């Protein structure tokens, strides 16, 4: 499954017809500003089935969080670096799989990978082509964290959630930023819904375009949210390099807990991740 929405450096002003997504709306055309993107980092997850993601690009987070509190969110899973939780599927995708299994005292396992210490960047376009998992309490995410988190702490480091989905609403994703004074439930956020479709039946391209005084959020190249320093109730901290995180959490404060009706296992498939810089 490869769908290439390549936005090449030569792309000019482009307009998209969005009949499928906004069939009820009369204005189906978006006019976006000219940006000239150059690809600087990517992973298309090609490789043999069962192999773990490229160690030169990704590190694993292991366990239940540094404070044993479910990564600050009361999440229920234990993150491992086992191929059953994160590996290539042999069809050009990364598969991050949440399983219902007792492991190291947790009721579920899953995986969380990040580029911390391997790749960070300030500004540019960050995108991933993803097919989400589903089910109550399933929480897939594609997000960025300020690389100074270890020195200044969270939320001072900043966080940009490019895609988060609550499995009990498989047709709705959210894009959010967190910073000092606007973190956790006070994060600046907006949702994007597919009216008669779901994010778990096909791949969709989730992206942000990030400049000095704006962060634009896209689904399938449709801009649905722009956040600027004027929107946040605190310091604008999106001015330094961030790293990428991808994970599937189970349960937690954000969305509530899985039920016995939640189908397991649940897998997030990532076709590719690409990072661009704006050419001068």
């Amino acid at each position, binding site marked *: 499954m490869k769908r290439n929405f390549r936005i090449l450096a030569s792309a000019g002003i482009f307009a998209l017809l969005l009949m499928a997504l906004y069939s009820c709306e009369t204005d189906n055309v978006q006019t976006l500003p000219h940006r000239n993107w150059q690809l600087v980092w990517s992973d298309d997850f090609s490789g043999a089935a069962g192999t773990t993601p490229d160690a030169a690009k990704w590190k694993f987070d292991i366990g239940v969080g540094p404070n044993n509190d479910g990564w600050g969110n009361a999440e229920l899973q234990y993150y491992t670096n086992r191929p059953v939780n994160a590996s290539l599927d042999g069809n050009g995708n990364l598969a991050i799989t949440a399983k219902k299994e007792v492991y190291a005292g947790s009721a579920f396992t899953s995986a969380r990978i990040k580029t911390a210490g391997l790749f960070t960047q300030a500004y540019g376009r960050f995108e991933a082509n993803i097919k989400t998992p589903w089910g109550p309490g399933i929480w897939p995410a594609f997000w960025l964290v300020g690389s100074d988190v270890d020195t200044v702490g969270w939320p001072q480091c900043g966080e940009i959630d490019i895609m988060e989905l609550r499995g009990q609403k498989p047709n709705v994703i959210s894009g959010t930023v967190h910073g000092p004074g606007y973190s956790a439930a006070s994060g600046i956020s907006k949702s994007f819904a597919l009216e008669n479709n779901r994010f*778990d039946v096909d791949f969709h391209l989730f992206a942000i375009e990030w400049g000095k005084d704006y962060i634009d959020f896209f689904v399938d190249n449709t801009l649905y949210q722009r956040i600027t320093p004027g929107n946040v109730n605190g310091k604008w901290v999106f001015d330094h390099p961030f790293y990428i995180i991808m994970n599937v959490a189970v349960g937690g404060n954000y969305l509530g807990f899985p039920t016995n009706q939640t189908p397991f296992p649940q897998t997030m498939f990532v076709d590719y991740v690409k990072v661009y810089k704006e050419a001068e």
Partner: protein
Amino acid sequence: MKNSKSYYSITVIIAFLLMAVSCERKLDGLELATYPTTPEVFIDGFSTGLYYAAYGTSKVTAFNVDYSVKYKGTASMRFDVPDTTDPNGSYVGGVFGTNPGRDLSAYNVLTFWAKASQPAVLNEIGFGNDMGASKYKVTIPNLTVNSNWMKYYIPIPDPSVLTQEHGMLFYSAVHQNGRGYTFWIDEVKFENIGTIAHKTAGILNGQDVIKNNVETDEEFQVSDLYASFNLPTGVDQKVSLTTSYFAFKSSNPAVATVDPTGKVKTVGAGSAVITATMGDLAAKGSLTINSVGQSVKPTEPATTPSLPAANVISLFSNVYTNVPVDTWNTHWLYSTAENQDVKIKGDDAIRYRNLNFVGIEFSSQPIDAGDMTNFHIDIWTPDATSGKKFKVLLADFGADGVYGGNDDSNFEVTINSPPLASQQWVSINIPMSSFTGLKSKSHLAQLVLSGDLPNLYIDNVYFNNSGPTTPTTAAPVPTYSAANVISVFSDAYTNISGTDLSPNWGQATVVSQISVAGNNTLKYKGLNYQGIQLGSAQNVSAMSFLHLDFWSANSTALNVYLISSGPVEKAYKLTVPTSGWTSLDIPLSSFAPVNLSGVIQLKFDGNGDIYLDNILFRK
């Protein structure tokens, strides 16, 4: 009266005219009938063509349109589930159908809103029940509802087949813990919702079921058919389906065939895998038939028992009235035995397969076998018996007649090979005295068969005794004319004079004459052999038969001989033991080459205690 009759005539004429018109209609250019695609079933009232039919045995007044409680609009459907004691019916159920049928092929789900006066479980709700074949029935069993309005979804597994569906909604519900309650359903309609996804289908509950040691002609039904969908809420909804949604396939029709209704028939030896598809979707689950082909089985029934019914307590036999047996397979833990009732040339038998051990229980009416001397069972096995064992265990539940109570006892008797034999009926008679560990035989409640013969046919399972050891009635008095009789020993005729009933031939037999019901009877106790020396040589060549009456409860071998000088003798085998007196006329030709003009002696040999009467030659 007169008027209405004339109206009737007019109606008939009009109808006739209409028929005449319709007959002239040309078929050319006719289009396929199309059916309405109306999605609404019940929004604020019955949609066009909708009717309601309550199940005949339900409380038929339970359904009403409710104009005060509703999710939306002006009305909902209210169902009043009765208490379990309601004399008008103890459950609610019925069908909402349409005429004509509707084309639902553009929809993928039936949705409705529902709530109840208390948390409850609706036993069945679905669509596709047309009160007829209900070919495309879809059911959600045990749908939970609570006191809040919630939206429910019944996905359509394969919309393409629902082009003229009559069954819009059906339901049934019973009380909760004996007490009735009320539930409401509103905004019932078919929809096409893109947020329902991840359709899967399955047979046999999605399991891969394997049947080993299947034999030709064995049949199976593929059941537990379902489809599952992920709802807009992220949870899966499973629906139970009829076979019409599936196409079944056998990987090897030479081994097993499957028909469109999912009925599997084994036709040969080998392996076949039955799978199914729903549209383009492969169904989860399969049925693997590992067939051994035709089974090796008895072609003839076991020998018919000949013991008098009075001497038998039968558990299983076509000859006797059987006592109640609770089960021929208790399916105890670790027992792998499967039982099957079979007929062998019309005679009932029980077949066991995979028998490691099997419990047979008659504890609800324990058997008093205190007067019985033997346990009998006929067995037939296709298995090789060399070095194998067959074990019979009897369990007595003691004076309290129930399991436990410190008065139970049991004992197991092992049968070796021989007498065990392969592919033939083996009659097993175990003296009750062999069950040495049985403290009592008056409350027998269980029989356990085990050993190393996994394949077994059994028949004629009974306890028996040999009945009275001496005859209690006299032998039947013969009625032949004295002129046609030369009598050796009978009260009815004049016997040959000078006959010695106990000549000393060195025998061990003890001979006596006893009176049985006033009739003089000859008794051989502990027969090995015994002669009768006639008072004079007899010419019996004018006679046709040797007649005799004999009785034995314990003999297993008995022959009678005629002897002429020489001596020339010839034996004739008599069937023992007897059930009562056996009266026999033996053609004298059977005794050739004995000289019938000069018969001088008779002789018996065999074993047991024999009673004889009316030994005579007759025409």
